[in-house]
């Protein structure tokens, strides 16, 4: 390697321009490689995410064989996109539909900052109960061995029967139908998930109620 120590033990003088150009060149090469691979893998990654979302929707709204996507346009839900609207930029929920054609519940995607990073979830919601029908963690980078326990099927299973709004309680302390147990050792992550559901329902409940009442279709 150039720039090593010389016979007297002191590092030879290297110009600042050379140091800057070396780091700049390495950074430019790194950026180029990352952008190229990102562009190359993006279509596959998006297709995988869409497939995972579809599986998650059918999982959190039991009894569904298919689903309809409902978009929020001017504060109300609609199944048809207005002309020129970009579906990716609109907020949306998914309405589960049974084989017989009946509505089975809503799948609501939401996200909130957890301990490490943003946790993305989707949960099933039955406005008639009202309560949750299921929960799937779509994306999480919580601490391995601690925060990532929010993805444990045993913990997720409680969300199939809870009534809303949820109350976060310590593990083993659930007494009421709306008590969602947190996880010892993953308190922040589990509380974040519970809070995200409550926050999403605060926003979505009136919109879903209006949709069910037939105000918008």
């Amino acid at each position, binding site marked *: *390697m150039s*720039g090593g120590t010389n016979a007297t033990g002191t*590092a030879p003088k290297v110009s600042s321009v050379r140091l800057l150009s070396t780091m700049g060149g390495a950074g430019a090469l790194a950026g180029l490689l990352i952008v190229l691979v990102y562009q190359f893998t993006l279509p596959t990654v998006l297709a995988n995410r869409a497939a995972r979302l579809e599986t998650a929707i059918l999982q959190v709204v039991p009894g569904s064989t298919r689903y309809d996507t409902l978009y929020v346009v001017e504060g109300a839900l609609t199944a048809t996109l207005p002309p020129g609207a970009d579906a990716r930029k609109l907020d949306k929920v998914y309405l589960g539909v049974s084989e017989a054609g009946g509505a089975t519940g809503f799948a609501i995607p939401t996200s909130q900052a957890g301990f490490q990073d943003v946790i993305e979830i989707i949960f099933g919601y039955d406005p008639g109960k009202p309560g949750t029908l299921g929960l799937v963690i779509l994306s999480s*980078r919580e601490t*391995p061995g601690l925060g990532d326990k929010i993805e444990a099927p045993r913990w997720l299973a409680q969300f199939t029967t809870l009534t809303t709004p949820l109350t976060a309680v310590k593990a083993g302390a659930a007494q009421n139908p709306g008590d969602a147990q947190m996880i010892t050792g993953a308190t922040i992550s589990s509380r974040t998930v519970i809070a995200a559901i409550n926050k999403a329902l605060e926003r979505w409940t009136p919109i879903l109620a209006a949709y069910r009442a037939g105000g918008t279709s």
Partner: protein
Amino acid sequence: MTTAPGPAASELLLRGIWRENPVLVATLGLCPTLAVTNSIANSLTMGIATLCVLVCSSVLVSSARKYVPNQVRISTYILIIATFVTLADMVLEAIVPAIHKALGAFIALIVVNCMILGRQEAFASKNTVGRSAMDALGVGAGFTLTLLLMGAPRELLGAGSLLGYNVMGPRFEPWVIMILPPGGFLMIGLLLIGKNWWALRTAQPKAERIAAMAAARAAAAQPAQARTREGALV
């Protein structure tokens, strides 16, 4: 800097796999070794991802060794390693999304695996591209092999399966502890015992040979001394 002469390419490859295994001899990279080896698929994916990052980083660092000033070498190595880890992360998310999700943050944490930076600083920055690639291949293969040696028994005993296929039958009660963190510590302990036992066993005959040679030299020297003493008596 001149290229240091050293072992042959095949020797470079083999020493990383066994004699200088990064996990079992240098005890480097223990974080992913303990954390992700609860199944063969996870072990293999992490091993291959690390191997690819290691080989690509070593080739690039070795290629640029004459142009990177000493003052910015560590920053440059980290940048190179982080770039290849990002690429590995993207490619894994595209081709094996389920395993990518299972490995979680550990793919990104390859950046801070000291084994990788260590090989750049200790070897790739001082050797030719070919030798650096062979060294990285050996070390990466040794790492992957160790992860598999950890992952296979843990999955077999902890879940009763190998690569997801049930092989222990319906009557087998899984040893759940094996896929939990204590199972990782247990396995690494067993592997370290096995490796050290083997090292001692293979080292013993050599020690015995040295002792025999010393005894022979002592025996050859004894008559001469005896003769000298006899002469002196005379």
